[in-house]
């Protein structure tokens, strides 16, 4: 019996290993591109050239080799905007993802392990939050606190902490019923100590998987906010802004929509697969 499980595990691991490499690879490329955007961009992402608008990308009739991915309707370089947009996407992913994760997990852990009134309060808050349509809530918050990178990050944290809180709460409740928690109590560990030393390591794999998922979601939320013109500013290059523009001129210049869309797809997919891959690779219980 033991043999067959190791075998199956091995198969799954190989498949996930590949996923881990592919998703990690794309995110690495993206990070490098974002860091070295000024060196890689052939043009300034903001400089307009009204005469050179809607130049198609490479290998299409009428392409201009200095604009490998073409230009948008205002003649701005799609590649440059993509690279600089990647910077913003990554910053949002990292900062908003981590902040959401820390706040949501902490609340979920407290509610799930301590139960009692902290759980009552946190659960009621979760219920209230779940009754808001998240996208509308985010748009509303940006409208209230005004556009800008900080606002976006803040909005994501405010709307999405429940994702962590809900899952971590349930997990902490399940772990709290295990005898190793009773055993820690017999050993004389404090409640808070047990939560941090015994429960936390057991919910961490779930948290990590959620974290990378959340990073992907943060990128999407940023894109959605840019799409409804509420993100940073209409000028700054963001993938969502490019998509919004591409959506309106999709019949005239499909490439303005396609390239940022491909980047978003790959990034979101990579983040979600990365989490699963990491969990499978580094969790001692699964290993």
């Amino acid at each position, binding site marked *: *019996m033991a*043999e*067959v499980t190791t*075998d*199956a595990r091995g198969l799954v691991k190989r498949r996930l290993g590949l996923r881990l490499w592919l998703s990690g690879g794309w995110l690495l490329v993206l990070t490098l591109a974002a860091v070295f955007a000024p060196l890689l961009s052939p043009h300034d992402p903001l400089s307009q050239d009204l005469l050179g608008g809607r130049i198609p990308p490479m290998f299409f009739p009428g392409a201009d080799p200095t604009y490998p991915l073409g230009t948008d309707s205002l003649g701005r370089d799609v590649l440059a905007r993509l690279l600089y947009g990647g910077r913003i996407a990554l910053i949002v992913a990292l900062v908003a993802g981590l902040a959401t994760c820390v706040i949501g997990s902490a609340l979920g852990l407290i509610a799930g392990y301590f139960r009692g009134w902290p759980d009552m309060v946190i659960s009621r808050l979760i219920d209230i939050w779940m009754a808001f349509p998240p996208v509308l809530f985010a748009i509303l918050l940006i409208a209230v606190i005004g556009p800008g990178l900080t606002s976006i990050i803040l909005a994501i944290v405010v709307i999405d902490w429940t994702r962590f809180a809900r899952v971590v709460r349930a997990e902490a409740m399940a772990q709290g019923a295990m005898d190793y928690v009773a055993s820690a109590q017999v050993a004389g560990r404090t409640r808070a100590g047990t939560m941090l030393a015994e429960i936390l390591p057991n919910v961490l794999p779930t948290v990590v998987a959620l974290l990378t998922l959340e990073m992907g979601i943060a990128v999407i939320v940023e894109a959605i906010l840019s799409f409804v013109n509420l993100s940073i500013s209409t000028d700054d290059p963001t993938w969502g802004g490019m998509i919004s523009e591409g959506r309106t001129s999709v019949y005239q210049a499909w490439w303005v929509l396609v390239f940022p869309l491909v980047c978003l797809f790959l990034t979101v997919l990579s983040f979600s697969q990365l989490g699963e891959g990491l969990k499978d690779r580094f969790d001692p219980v699964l290993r």
Partner: protein
Amino acid sequence: MTDRPFLEISQLTARLKGSGTPLLRSVDLAVPAGSVHGLVGESGAGKSMIGKAILGILPRSVEVATGAIRLDGTDLQSLPPAERRTRVGALTALIPQDPLTALNPSRRIGPQITDRLVDILGWDRARAVDRARQLLAEVQLPDPDRILRSYPHELSGGQRQRILIAAAFAAEPRLIIADEPTTALDVTVQKQILRLIREMQERHGTAMLFVTHDLGVVSKVCQSLSVLYAGKIVESARVEDFFRAPAHTYSRALLAASPRYTDPHGSLMPVPDEVMQAVRAEVAAFDEGRAAHV
């Protein structure tokens, strides 16, 4: 009854798909009609595997490599899957281990007893319900009509185990496989259930394969037994002979390891290392012998 055993297993070998690790090693077994045969061993010895192989419910990762399983002379392994299934359904039944999970929580008790009669054996419904009623009375459950209408959660663990016994005998199977049927129960309830199984088995003249880890239970319900280690039968014997003088050293050690409150110093003895080494060596030698033959 005929001389021929109702259940006859010969040279049954099962292994893991892929790695080919053997799980059953050339098992030979014969259970005459109307007799109870115990299968004993520690966890992983393959005792449940034999019952599963007969019933055709082996895990997907396990395959039967060689050997024959004959029910009433017909080799099941040679039948096409659908025919094998209905034949097994008509001739055998299973009494499972855990009464709490062995009844479908979203279906009423009645259909769970009668479904085999109606769907597989083609009885008409009224006759099947009559039969169910009669069986519930036989397992000493009061108010059969109420029970037939109940859902499993409305009944106690002991009641559910009685229902499972009734359901097992419903189609007058010729062979019943009881897979640790009392392990989940308290010792006082265990006694009642074991007696009930014995009574029913005797009254219906059913052959029975009784899987258990408890030699005490074997001594109370079986006429013969086989001791397994690592998927190999190390000893088969009649119960009278076995408990007077087990032939194999491993059997002896297992008997000495069994709890017996009447003899606190002669029971619960750890299996000596020499015995473990000897039985492991025996299995290894068997594997080599097979390899040499092939």
